[in-house]
Every structure is written in structure tokens, then in C-alpha cells.
């Protein structure tokens, strides 16, 4: 499903997640491929993504440039960072000395990088298909390289910006214009990365014509932020929709699913993690931790804590997914945890995304009270009780943000 058919559910590709992506093809809409991985593990990523795109389900995919990587000083650049810079024919993008400034990205450099980026997207599959047969075999389907699809769209390179006065925004807009001009074969999408929800609102206010666009509020951790921040994000989405835009979230968890009824078209996240991300942390990478998705609280918790909830009352962790198979949370291994999480998000989308915000708030308030009561009345070691209650504290913040 393309990213703008509500509510589209994209998964960020990671090399450790191939099993989940392969086996749960009907549980997500598309794949978001980080350009760092696409550049560094070029044949492996290409072989996997392209063979998957050649299947009957043919999940669409897009490649995220991860460009704010090059907006900061990279003290210890990884091979994937230099591989991406080399792919863009601009090794100077890796700034190990001082942090770059907007002046370091004059028009000619922006245009050159944009052209190279579009070439990479439109040529994806020509240089990356050496491993196609290997991954096609794992899929267990008769797929051929000529059935592989191009990316759904080219995501223009972008910078993280505070607001519309931020000089990086003008450079970001230039990147979009240059990429749009170069992308004649594929649609081009603007990526708007803001530091706050109110900043996003301000940035989107400068995009005049209605667009399908990708939004990202850096480090907006739905589970550890205030109702006020969440409300700012909601307002930014609502205002964008009222101006005719169709926003898709580059990162998002369950709160983003709820914003589906406010007009958010979809969201992407990593398998088992990465429902939010700070642009400053883009240089860091790694596999998702083994955590359990607690459906009733709509969040990941440690397996230890999930087991505490199970011991309080097994219905708290009750799950009808085939990966849990009626077992307690602690019994799930790593890949089962990952598949359970994807299954849960798919279920959440099916059940919740059309729910109006007021009704969603009421349901979450009721869930919060019920869970809090169960934890408060259970006989628990005090530090465990504190931890269990702490895992529910995002719910009243969400309720406030949805009801305001």
C-alpha cells in the first residue's frame, strides 16, 4: 500500500529483521530503507528489498536519505556514513572536524547531490541485484529480477530545522526543489524534519501548495513527553491537513495511529523499536532490544516487566497473535517478540485508526484506570510497583493531548 492511503504502516528495514519482513508480508504496507544501509550493505539490502518487491504482495518501498547525518559533526564516522557520502559522490559530506553550516551547502552542491540521489533511486535494482536469487529462494516464491519494482517515490534529502527562520530550512527547500526537478520518473516527496511540534507547524505553514509530504518531529518520544508537546504535534498535523497536505510520519508509534483520524496518513517505525528518533542520534545504530509490546498500554516494556503484568493478571498480556500462542511474555524469543510487535501494530491500526479522538481518549482513560488499579492492588516489591506504574504514565498525557 502506498504511504498515503490511510493508514499505511511502513517498517524501517534492518538487516536483523529480514525474517519478520519476509514472514509478515500481509501485516505492513511498505518498507522504509535507510540510505546508510542501502549504501553500505548494497547487495544484501538490494537483493532483499528488490526480491520482496517482486512478490505478489509487492510491498512498496522508499529510501530515506538520513541526510541530517551530514548536518552535524561526525566524530567517529561509520563505514555506512562514508558509503552513503561516496554514493552521493561527495565524500566531504562526512564532517569530522567542525559541524557544517547552511553555507556549506551552496546551490550547486545541493543540485549535484540531489541529482546523484535521484539517480540512485531511479537506478535502484540495476547495481543492487547480485543477491536477488539468494533472497528470492528464501522467499520460497518464483520471482524474477525483472519483476522488481522501483521505489514508490524519491524522498528528497532534507535538514533538521527549528522553524521557518532557521537557515537550514531554506537549504532544505532548495534540496526539495532540486530533487523534484531531477526526479522525472518518480514522484518526489518533501521531508520536513522539525525540532518541535510547534516548529513543524511553522515549517509546514510555509509550504503553500497542497502536497503529500513526510513529517518528522525529532525526538518526539510519544511515551516520554508532555501532553503539551503531543498536542503541538497533533495541531501541526491538523493544520497541515486543513491546508490540503497529506502527511506521513517518518517515525511514529500508537499515538501516531490515533492521529489517523486527525488526518495523518501513515507512519513508519523500526521493527521492535525506533518509534521516535533524534536527528542528533542518527549516527548511532544497532539492533532493536528484546522487548515485549504490551498491547493494553500500547508500548514496549522489558520482558521482566511484561512478566510482572502477566503475574498480576494474565489478561493484561493476553494476545491472540500466533507468535505469543497463549504463552507468557517471558517465553517469547527475540524473533517472536519482533513479530508480535508488528502483529500488534497492525491490529492497532485496524481497530483504532478511525476512532475519533474523543472516543480514543475515553477508552485510553478507562484502560489507564483499570491497569493502575490492578497494579496498585497487587502485592509487589515497591520498586517493581513503581516501575509498573511508570510504564503507564504516558496514557494520561495522551488523553489530555487527544481531548484538548
Amino acid at each position, binding site marked *: 500500500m502506498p504511504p498515503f492511503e490511510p493508514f499505511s504502516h511502513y517498517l524501517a528495514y534492518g538487516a536483523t529483521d529480514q525474517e519478520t519482513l519476509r514472514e509478515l508480508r500481509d501485516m505492513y504496507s511498505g518498507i522504509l530503507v535507510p540510505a546508510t544501509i542501502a549504501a553500505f550493505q548494497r547487495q544484501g539490502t538490494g537483493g532483499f528489498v528488490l526480491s520482496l518487491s517482486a512478490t505478489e504482495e509487492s510491498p512498496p518501498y522508499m529510501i530515506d536519505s538520513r541526510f541530517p547525518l551530514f548536518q552535524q559533526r561526525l566524530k567517529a564516522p561509520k563505514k555506512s556514513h562514508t558509503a552513503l557520502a561516496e554514493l552521493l559522490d561527495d565524500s566531504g559530506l562526512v564532517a569530522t572536524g567542525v559541524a557544517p553550516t547552511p553555507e556549506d551547502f551552496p546551490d550547486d552542491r545541493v543540485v549535484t547531490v540531489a541529482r546523484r540521489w535521484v539517480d540512485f533511486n531511479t537506478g535502484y535494482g540495476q547495481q543492487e541485484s547480485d543477491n536477488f536469487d539468494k533472497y528470492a529462494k528464501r522467499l520460497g516464491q518464483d520471482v524474477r529480477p525483472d519483476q522488481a519494482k522501483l521505489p514508490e517515490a524519491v524522498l528528497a534529502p532534507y535538514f533538521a530545522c527549528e522553524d521557518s527562520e532557521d537557515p537550514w530550512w531554506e537549504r532544505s527547500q532548495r534540496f526539495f526543489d532540486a530533487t523534484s526537478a531531477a526526479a522525472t520518473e518518480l514522484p518526489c516527496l518533501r521531508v520536513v524534519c522539525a525540532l518541535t511540534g510547534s516548529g513543524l507547524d511553522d515549517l509546514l505553514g510555509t509550504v503553500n501548495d497542497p502536497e503529500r509530504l513526510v513529517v518528522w518531529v525529532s525526538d518526539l518520544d510519544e511515551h516520554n513527553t508532555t501532553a503539551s508537546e503531543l498536542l503541538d504535534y497533533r495541531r501541526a498535523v491538523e493544520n497541515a491537513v486543513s491546508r490540503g497536505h497529506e502527511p506521513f510520519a517518518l517515525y511514529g508509534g500508537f499515538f501516531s495511529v490515533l492521529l489517523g483520524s486527525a488526518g495523518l496518513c501513515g507512519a513508519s517505525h523500526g521493527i521492535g523499536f525506533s518509534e521516535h528518533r533524534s536527528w542528533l542520534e542518527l549516527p548511532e545504530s544497532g539492533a532493536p532490544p*528484546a522487548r515485549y509490546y504490551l498491547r493494553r498500554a500500547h508500548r514496549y516494556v*522489558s*520482558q*521482566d516487566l511484561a*512478566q510482572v503484568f502477566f503475574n498480576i493478571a494474565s489478561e493484561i498480556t493476553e494476545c491472540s497473535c500466533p507468535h505469543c500462542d497463549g504463552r507468557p511474555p*517471558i517465553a517469547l524469543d527475540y524473533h517472536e517478540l519482533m513479530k508480535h510487535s508488528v502483529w500488534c501494530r497492525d491490529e492497532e491500526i485496524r481497530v483504532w485508526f478511525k476512532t475519533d479522538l474523543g472516543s480514543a481518549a475515553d477508552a485510553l482513560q478507562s484502560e489507564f484506570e483499570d491497569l493502575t488499579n490492578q497494579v496498585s492492588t497487587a502485592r509487589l*516489591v515497591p*520498586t517493581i510497583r513503581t516501575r509498573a506504574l511508570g510504564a503507564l504514565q504516558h496514557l494520561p498525557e495522551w488523553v489530555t493531548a487527544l481531548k484538548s
Partner: protein
Amino acid sequence: MSPEYRALMQRHLPDPTVFHSGEAALMPALMEWLISSGRVRSRTSVVHEVPWLGRRVDLALLNGRGLTTAFELKIGRLQRAIEQAAYNRESFHRSWVVTGNRPKSEGLDWVRELGIGLLVVQGDVVSTFVTPVIREPHPAVVRRLRTTIETRAGIADAAV
């Protein structure tokens, strides 16, 4: 001191000076107690700092009969060690807290209620305050845990 005792100490605690500060200082006396009391034998896998469910268990044993035991060491703040031991009892057959101080009554009550064991180490003396209840964790967890301990023990033995 039997040759077997010396061999086991050499194998599982080759350099006791590594364990000199904080709760690690409890380790030499604990290991001596485990070996002298027959809880660690030649077929027992012994692993320090085992990564498990996103945290680290201070000491894990896997005996020849497949039974697993966890130890959480703590000098102060017994509550935190009890919390860790409470988590461990969901995966291990036996779960212990090892501390350097005599526990207050509240801590002792929690230890007894949860069925975890409590050892107090003072100098070279190890005193058993509470013996843990043997539990039967979920089979899938036991399988994964055994593999984790065996793998780590294999790596540790290879390093020696």
C-alpha cells in the same frame, strides 16, 4: 584444600584481585562457598555477568542436571537486588540475593515471600539467611537460558 577445590577456584576465579571493589568484592567468598558446599562442581557451568532479557545477571550457574541458579550481588540498597532476584526467579530454578549487610526485617520478609534465597557475606564468612524455593520456569525460557549459559561458559573456558 583438595586438588579439585583448587582446580575449580582456578577455573572460575583465576584472579580474585579483579573482584576488589563494590559488590564484586563479595565474589571471592561467594565462589569459595559455592565450591566448598558442592554447589559448583566440575560439570557446573559458571558465568559472570550473563546478558539476560536486556540486563545482566551477576552470576549464573548451570549444573550437570540442567538446573539453573542466579545470584545478584549488592552491598547497599537491598530493594534493588530483591527486584532483580524477583525477575530472575521467572527464568532460573533458584534465585539468590547476596549482600554484605544483615538485612532489615522488611527486606527479609520480601525475600521469604518471593521464595528467593539470601546470603550475607562478611569478610570470608558466608551465612545463609534464607534458602530459595526451587521453581519450574517456562520450558521455553529454560531452554534459552541453558543455551545462553552454555555458550557464555564455552567462550569463558576458551579464553582461559
